[in-house]
């Protein structure tokens, strides 16, 4: 064995290169699966960890009063059970081997949300809450409640109520009981209730520093409006009109005495115990828990539990990640093996005389084989453990660098298991096996050579292209074509692996075709240079025409250039898309859900941020179709406060802002006492209903208000008087409308004239006689173009013609209506709202049949959806690629404009959001909260972007990029090594040329030209194949999981990247050409020929 390996050191350069390449290939094969698995583990942790604990943790609860067990006859017969008993019952339902393994130890709690308290005419629900260890979690001023009746009150709430330690707080409770009554069929139970008050003694106050702490499990049990200010508009935190919650009173278990309390336990998921292999077991345990919860009637407490969705998502991302990694590592490993084969072939060629000598010495076939393969096999044997260790280290390093971050409830941050699994072992075995095959194949080519042939010539003659080689090249081209055709014809993104591998196929095909073309071109070139070219050109073209290793030298560089360009561009496209997604998802740098009417929020934001630098308000109708939502934003600060990706539009945002701007000169008044003078009142109705005239305006505080001006009676003249509150500064007139009694609908017909308006006794100019002063206000009940009211301005004032029973022109349009409102609005508000629409949004819904929308407003006006869900005419003033909140399908309009006519009714599902620009002072947001408006964080662009960049495809692309760069380095190294290896034989030719008088300068120039043409062409063709891949393949690749309303990726070719790669690699190619050429000419002296003869 020693003799077999004696040559290892003698050929140390070659062997070191082969060792390095083998280490790289095996390490990459190990790194890939290990990283994929670690990334999947990271995804598992982050996906689950990012979810609220109550959606992934187990909760069991047990009510104090079981259903159907009301005290009979007397509510005082009820005796509250011990909390510990309820907790025990609840704990029994949240147990089991799977639960013990994957969920943490249970924490007992008790909650009573049956108590209430009335403050300033608003009734608040005031829960009692006990949780084991709560006094350690909260910041307590005073002492922890230990006796019945002891409570800790939230500090701000205590301030608001003016209570302190030792004071008493009384809550209202309702006790239920049943009595026996005589019914039709005999004795029956009847449920009754009794109000009761319970007083508690404050033993201190508390504050919650970290309500999101996993120790609290579900913060909604104790949080509420911390200052007991009901949200403006009377909406609760949940957007409904139920009693808003106040912060819970923290109590001792012994204070739980009512019928309405429940005892329970929480078990947050233990992310440190849940690994990828455990997912099926976790799913089984979760299913058992869900079934058991449903069985014991604890469905409510388990209704939020949903572990299946994130687990399925992680599985899908793991699959995607694995595919990305295979695609990332495939070219690297293939290139490594190709280089390894080239290097061991070169080494085999060097050892060829020694193998011949072994044969000549009569060594048996097995001995010759051992001798021939000993060195390359030894290299692989040495490289494998080194590579395994390096791959393992690299995986740990990558996991440490990339796969970290705080994982809520996930234990110590940054602990991601990095393990050797089956995939790793298989990948390593495949690559090691392939390396051994490459080594064996190279050795066999020497072994198979007849002894006479190997002894006859020192240099192995170039082999002609074999039929198998031709078939292989044809197969490469065919596979590339098939892959591209499949991707182009496939309508879905199912075959991601094929898509990801397609760039490699394309690069190989281009390399094969390119080498062929270069050979043909060089033949033409050599004919041309033979006739009238210089010596250098002739030498270069002659060598290029004769080289049989063109493909071998071009493939690595071309492949690497293509892969790295594709990876860089794909990463850029993917990253741009993630930025776009984050912008679209969040809306502003920071986004809050605001529990207040949109007009109030808009008014408040404008008041607190008059320069429009930080805040803006947006609304979106959550009940709408996510595929085509409309978002309304206060566009006066669109440019400053909206997270806008410049790629969304070619136009600057300031220009778009101008196109959407709200009316600047709105009708306003200041004062409280309004009087409206009517003339020539002639109205009738079939039902003879009462008719009322109302004013809709925006008050000082931004709240949209309606004030009854008065009942309208027929006659020559009538003056209506009303009090308009909150108009001391400036109120904006939005609408005047005629309704039935108490804003009910009316079927009035006829006309009246508004002759004048006075505010606080002084006449005001409401532009009643101006031609464009007023118009019919939308929405129209029958159609978009048939208002039930017409305005006729004149010298006497504003004539209002009401057609609520039969619309004018009804015969022609066959449109009629029985009842509704007759609304008019100042003409300053555009009737057709300008909107931005995304490219993916349809031109607009067609107007109703028979409508002359286009005739009335122009062909570019279509039907849109207003803030209140009504149809409205819109004009698309610009098309953009995406919009905040709606993504790639939807529209954006001005909020203020829309509110004039389409203010959503109270209790609607409209989401009101406050968007804050980067650098918004915290004090500004505090001022918003100080107005009693609860702001619930929706998200931040930065954190959302960080999360998006941590998804499977992003993590995979990162590795694709790194491996692509490694491939490039390997390719450059391989090309350089191959060129250097050949330099010895090339030097003989150079020496011969020098002997016949060719100048050294011509020889150097010829060699440089040859290598620059060859390698430069490889770079250019690599860029071409990358471009082809980017155009054909990239759009077929899923860049990650995205919600339906995400902006679509913009598959633009990033030319700076392409140009940068091209320039850098061309310089590298030139450097290689210079170094190799200098070496060849340095070695190629006349004395070289003598040496060659001797050897």
């Amino acid at each position: 064995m020693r003799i077999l390996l004696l040559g290892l050191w003698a050929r140390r350069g070659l062997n070191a290169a082969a060792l390095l390449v083998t280490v790289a290939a095996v390490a990459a094969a190990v790194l890939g699966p290990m990283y994929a698995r670690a990334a999947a583990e990271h995804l598992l942790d982050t996906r689950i960890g990012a979810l609220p604990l109550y959606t992934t943790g187990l909760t069991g609860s047990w009510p104090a009063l079981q259903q159907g067990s009301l005290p009979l006859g007397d509510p005082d017969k009820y005796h509250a059970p011990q909390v510990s008993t309820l907790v025990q019952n609840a704990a029994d339902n949240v147990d089991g081997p799977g639960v013990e393994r994957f969920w943490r130890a249970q924490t007992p709690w008790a909650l009573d949300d049956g108590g209430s308290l009335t403050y300033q005419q608003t009734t608040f629900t005031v829960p009692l809450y006990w949780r084991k260890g709560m006094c350690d979690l909260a910041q307590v001023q005073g002492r922890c409640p230990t006796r019945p009746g002891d409570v800790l009150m939230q500090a701000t709430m205590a301030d608001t109520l003016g209570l302190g330690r030792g004071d008493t707080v009384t809550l209202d409770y309702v006790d239920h009981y049943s009595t026996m009554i005589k019914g039709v069929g005999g004795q029956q139970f009847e449920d009754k209730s009794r109000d009761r008050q319970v007083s508690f003694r404050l033993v201190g106050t508390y504050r919650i520093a970290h309500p999101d702490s996993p120790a609290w499990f579900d913060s909604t049990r104790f949080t509420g409006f911390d200052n007991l200010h009901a949200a403006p508009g009377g909406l609760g935190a949940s957007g409904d009109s139920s009693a808003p919650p106040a912060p819970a009173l923290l109590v001792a278990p012994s204070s739980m005495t009512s019928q309405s309390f429940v005892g329970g336990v929480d078990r947050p998921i233990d992310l440190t115990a849940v690994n990828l292999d455990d997912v099926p077991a976790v799913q089984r345990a979760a299913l058992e828990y869900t079934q058991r919860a449903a069985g014991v009637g604890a469905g409510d407490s388990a209704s939020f539990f949903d572990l299946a969705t994130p687990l399925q998502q992680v599985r899908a991302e793991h699959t995607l990640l694995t595919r990305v990694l295979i695609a990332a590592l495939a070219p690297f490993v293939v290139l490594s093996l190709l280089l390894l084969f080239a290097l061991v072939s070169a080494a085999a060629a060097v050892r060829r005389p020694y193998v011949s000598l072994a044969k000549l010495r009569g060594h048996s076939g097995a001995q010759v084989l051992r001798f021939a393969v000993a060195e390359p096999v030894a290299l692989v044997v040495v490289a494998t453990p080194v590579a395994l260790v390096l791959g393992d280290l690299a995986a740990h390093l990558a996991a440490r660098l990339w796969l970290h971050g705080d994982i809520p409830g996930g234990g110590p941050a940054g602990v991601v298991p990095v393990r050797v699994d089956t995939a790793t072992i298989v990948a390593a075995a495949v690559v090691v096996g392939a390396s051994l095959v490459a080594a064996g194949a190279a050795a066999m080519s020497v072994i198979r050579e007849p002894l006479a042939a190997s002894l006859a010539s020192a240099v192995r003659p170039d082999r002609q292209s074999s039929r198998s080689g031709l078939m292989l090249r044809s197969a490469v081209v065919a596979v590339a074509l098939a892959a591209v055709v499949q991707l182009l014809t496939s309508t879905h993104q199912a075959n991601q692996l094929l898509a990801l591998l397609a760039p490699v196929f394309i690069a190989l095909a281009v390399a094969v075709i390119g080498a062929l073309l270069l050979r043909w071109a060089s033949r033409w070139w050599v004919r041309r240079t033979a006739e009238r070219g210089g010596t250098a050109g002739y030498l270069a073209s002659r060598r290029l025409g004769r080289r049989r290793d063109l493909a071998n030298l071009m493939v690595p560089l071309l492949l690497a250039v293509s892969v790295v360009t594709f990876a860089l561009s794909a990463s850029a496209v993917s990253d741009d898309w993630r930025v776009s997604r984050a912008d679209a998802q969040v809306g502003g740098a920071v986004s809050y859900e605001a529990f207040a009417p949109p007009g109030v929020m808009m008014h408040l934001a404008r008041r607190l941020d008059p320069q429009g630098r930080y805040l803006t308000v947006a609304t979106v109708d959550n009940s709408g179709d996510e595929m085509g939502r409309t978002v309304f934003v206060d566009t006066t600060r669109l440019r400053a406060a909206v997270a806008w990706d410049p790629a969304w539009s070619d136009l600057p945002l300031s220009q778009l802002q101008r196109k959407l701007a709200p009316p600047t000169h709105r009708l306003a008044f200041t004062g409280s006492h309004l009087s409206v003078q009517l003339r020539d009142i002639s109205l009738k109705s079939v039902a003879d209903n009462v008719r009322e005239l109302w004013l809709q305006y925006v008050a000082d505080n931004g709240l949209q208000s309606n004030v009854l001006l008065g009942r309208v009676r027929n006659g020559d003249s009538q003056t209506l008087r009303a009090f308009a509150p909150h108009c001391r500064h400036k109120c904006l007139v939005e609408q005047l409308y005629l309704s039935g009694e108490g804003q009910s609908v009316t079927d009035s017909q006829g006309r009246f004239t508004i002759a004048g308006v006075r505010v606080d006794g002084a006449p005001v100019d409401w532009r009643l006689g101006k031609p464009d002063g007023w118009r019919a206000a939308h929405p129209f009940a029958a159609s978009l173009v048939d208002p039930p009211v017409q305005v006729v301005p004149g010298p006497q004032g504003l004539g209002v013609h009401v057609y609520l029973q039969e619309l004018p022109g009804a015969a022609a349009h066959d449109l009629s209506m029985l009842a509704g409102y007759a609304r008019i609005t100042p003409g300053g508000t555009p009737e057709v709202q300008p909107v931005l629409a995304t490219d993916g949004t349809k031109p607009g819904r067609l107007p109703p049949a028979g409508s002359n929308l286009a005739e009335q407003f122009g062909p570019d006006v279509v039907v849109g959806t207003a803030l209140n869900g009504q149809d409205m005419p819109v004009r698309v003033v610009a098309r953009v690629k995406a919009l905040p909140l709606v993504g790639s399908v939807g529209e954006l309009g001005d909020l203020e404009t829309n509110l004039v006519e389409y203010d959503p009714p109270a209790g609607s599902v409209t989401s009101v959001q406050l968007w804050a620009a980067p650098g918004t002072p915290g004090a500004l947001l505090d001022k918003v909260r100080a107005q009693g408006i609860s702001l619930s964080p929706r998200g931040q662009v930065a954190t959302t972007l960080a999360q998006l960049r941590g998804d499977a495809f992003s993590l995979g692309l990162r590795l694709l990029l790194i491996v692509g760069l490694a491939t490039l380095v390997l390719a450059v190294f391989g090309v350089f090594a191959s060129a250097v290896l050949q330099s010895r034989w090339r030097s003989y030719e150079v020496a011969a040329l020098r002997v016949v008088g060719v100048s050294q300068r011509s020889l150097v120039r010829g060699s440089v030209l040859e290598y620059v043409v060859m390698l430069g062409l490889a770079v250019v063709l690599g860029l071409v194949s990358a471009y082809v891949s980017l155009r054909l393949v990239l759009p077929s690749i899923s860049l990650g999981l995205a919600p339906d309303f995400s902006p679509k990726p913009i598959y633009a070719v990033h030319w700076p990247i392409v140009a940068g790669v091209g320039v850098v690699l061309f310089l590298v190619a030139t450097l290689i050409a210079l170094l190799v050429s200098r070496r060849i000419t340095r070695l190629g002296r006349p004395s070289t020929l003598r040496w060659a003869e001797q050897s």
Partner: protein
Amino acid sequence: MNVVQIYTTAGGHDVVALRGVNLDISAGEQVALLGPSGSGKSTLLSLFGGVLRPSAGKVLVDGQDISRITERELGKLRSGKVASLLQGASRNLLPYASPVDNVEFARLALPVSARRSLPSARELLDRLGMGDLADRPLAGMSGGERQRIAFAATVSSGAGLLLADEPTSQLSHDDRDAILELIHLVNAEFDTTVVLVTHDPEVAAQMPRSITIRNGRIGAEGRHGFDFGVVDEDGAVHIPDELATRFPAGTLVQFEQTEDGVLLRPVEERG
């Protein structure tokens, strides 16, 4: 042996390297093959070593027709019976290995028992006068020293037949003599049959028997300082070089039997 060897060139043309060579070499003989370049002497040596197989005829080594045996049997033959010394010392050595390692490498093909019966590599080098070179790296040796090591490695397997191709070319006179001395030594000590190819008449002269190959045929044979023509199977005889000018190609000759032998007389053409 009686062989014909035909090569097919890369251009598809057949080249006759040897034709009707009939040669017997007895065990223990020392034979030099002489001849100009391309005459076929190295080809003949390759046939002896089984490196080439004859196009026609037989090559018998130790009574075994090596032109008909398998590669495996040829391997066995090369491992123990026939040792080949290629032209150029470096082609016979692993340049990265020491002389001792080279000797051991040459013996690897022998069965273990056969190896044990032979003197160790170091002993062999000692016996051949190269003990001082045993552990020296080949890279630092002179051409003559390397050739001596190559010779030692070649004969180390104890083969009965030594085939040496130009063993003294590009060597100084001293080194040449040293090699010849080694050849005589192994012949004397191990009774090794030696067949060497050389251009050098001085080298050939030091061999008891020399055979001159011309145009693929045996042209002459020298024994103990005397040169003889050789009649081949067709009855053809090569005219010695020194007489060749008198018999240009196409010359008509008359054979006249005399008491001492046969007189070869050119016929002068008339008219």
